[in-house]
């Protein structure tokens, strides 16, 4: 099972790089949907006894992060007639290079931390890498919809770290966290939709009317 966990975590990190490297908005959304699916499978691989709690977590995560939210984001693209390119502030090649550096930093930090033992220890570097890359996407991509993808990556990274404590945190609480993320992305999507209708663009750099005068 440890091998499977390692493989899944490797794939999670790879999906981060797809978001960094792609030119197309729809690929970004597909990548983050795939990441959501991997995150849903992870608890089953980590805790193979397969209690009801683990299954509930897996199903809830897959439903929200791999199915509902990506569908909703695709709906927003279609309805608001968003241009399909990512239009980054930092070039794709440089993004990928910085991404590699970020992963290296995440592993270096995790190596120095006093970690919980066992297979769960591998979660920490993957989690930190995903958090850092999510923040990176939020900062370097000016299109509002891609920023939502960045936020989802960040949230996925936090979730990965949370998996080290899955047995201690009860299901009700995890469901609450999942619900909050769901509603958060939902409201963001609605705002993105209105931004695009109002500004004819999803570029958040156009949002610059409110300043101190």
């Amino acid at each position, binding site marked *: 099972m440890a091998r499977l966990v390692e493989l899944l975590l490797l794939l999670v990190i790879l999906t981060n790089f797809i978001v960094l490297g792609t030119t197309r908005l729809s690929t970004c959304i597909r990548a983050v949907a795939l990441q959501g699916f991997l995150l849903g499978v992870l608890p089953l691989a980590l805790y193979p006894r397969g209690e009801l709690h683990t299954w509930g977590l897996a199903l809830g995560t897959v439903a929200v992060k791999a199915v509902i939210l990506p569908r909703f984001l695709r709906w927003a693209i279609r309805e608001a007639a968003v241009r399909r390119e990512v239009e980054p502030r930092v070039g794709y090649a440089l993004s990928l290079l910085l991404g590699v550096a970020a992963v290296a930093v995440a592993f270096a930090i995790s190596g120095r931390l006093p970690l919980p033992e066992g297979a769960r220890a591998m979660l920490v570097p993957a989690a930190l890498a995903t958090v850092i890359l999510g923040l990176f996407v939020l900062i370097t991509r000016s299109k509002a919809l891609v920023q939502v993808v960045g936020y989802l990556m960040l949230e996925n990274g936090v979730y990965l770290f949370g998996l080290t404590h899955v047995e201690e945190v009860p299901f009700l609480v995890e469901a609450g966290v999942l619900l909050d993320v769901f509603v958060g992305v939902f409201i963001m999507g609605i705002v993105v939709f209105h931004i695009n209708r109002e500004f004819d663009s999803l570029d958040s750099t156009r949002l610059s009317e409110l300043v101190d*005068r």
Partner: protein
Amino acid sequence: MILLGLVAVPALAAAGAYAHREAPWRTAWLITGALLHLGLVAFAWASRPGPALGGWLALDALGSIVLATVSVLFAVIASYTVGYLRWEQPRGGRAFVSCLLVFLAAASLVALSHHFVLLWIGLEATTLAVAPLIFHRHDRRSLEAVWKYLVISSVAIALALLGVFFLATAQAGAGRPLVLEDLVAQGTRLHPDWLKAAFIFLLVGFGTKMGLAPLHTWKPDAYGEAPGLVGGLMAGALTSCAFLAVARSTQVALAAGVGPFIRPLLLAFGLLSLGVAAAFLVGQTDLRRLLAYSSVEHMGLLALGLGLGAAGSYGAVLHMINNAFVKGLLFLAAGNLLLRGAAGTHRTPVSAGLLLVGLFAVTGSPPFGTFLSEFAILGAAFQGGHYWIAGTALALLALIFVALAVRILGVIHGPSPGAAEAARESPWLVAGPIALALAVLLLGVYLPSALVDALGAAAGALGGRAP
């Protein structure tokens, strides 16, 4: 049961309000929900209910103070909303009243949670409930404000969740996971390095929600674009909830003996907030952005009080109550002026008078409650030997007083509307702010003994004492 009711009643009222298509029914749900909640809070203060949900929900001194503050402020804002909805129909329609009530449910959850993830869920829910309220006009400016608010707050709160998980790692099996009482009781068994990392993430995450500089950048935009009553709710109630979250994190850190690590952090955020607020208040022209920077200032004072400890903790908790009421008063009064157009086709003598009262209250002048609480915080700085902190804070407060006075007096004595007759100010629109002004005045001259006891207990939990 009461504890669950405090969360369930506003949540049910929100659902009830959403189900009705007629505006009067929605208003009725709002008032009923607010009054029932207020009644339950009073009952909870009298009966001191035990913990519920296996210790996850409990009512301690600090939580009950935040709960009562939010409930009173919400009742006032609910009454104001009745008058507001007659003047302006927000585009949100049905959702407007429901979002207000969902906010109350989420804020109650924050005040009652003794489980860190539950606390996080409540705080995130308050953020999300407020977002549609800022965005009620659906124009460019409110879109920009709500986008900044959503992105900055969501990222911050995600980092706070990471902080909560760090805390769970620090705990590593000592007591019930992430339950406040056990974290405090087992303080010495927590892993100090993970705990320090956790505190930094929690402070950054929850501090952003409070609006501590330099994490305050969403605040002027959101407060500037939101309707007055929503601004009052955010500056009064939302910040109090975020302060409670920071205070809970402080409580755990102090119990674990990392006070020397966290106090300088809190002091630095506090002083920086005062400095940034002073810098941006000078020359600020927009009334609501002015109030937003004033809110940054007061959050800075709260952080200072927490960081100083001793009588500072007492002052911080008292100041949280005062700040909530004063900000409610100011935003509602400012909202009244803006409802009629700031340039003015009508005169609004009562609201202008309230704004003047609010000016003296917000700058900590006697005999208002803010004077006592600011005095306690600054006094703690002098007593603790932090002379340069006290000196800097005093100088900045003086500068802030001048900046606020110049601008607010300018609004009150602004260009006369000429021949226009004095507008009849609807009692709904002025009764609430008047009640808040009286409350702040009362807190300055007389503190009920139940409140004094609760304040002492809350300060004790935060490593301080009554002065």
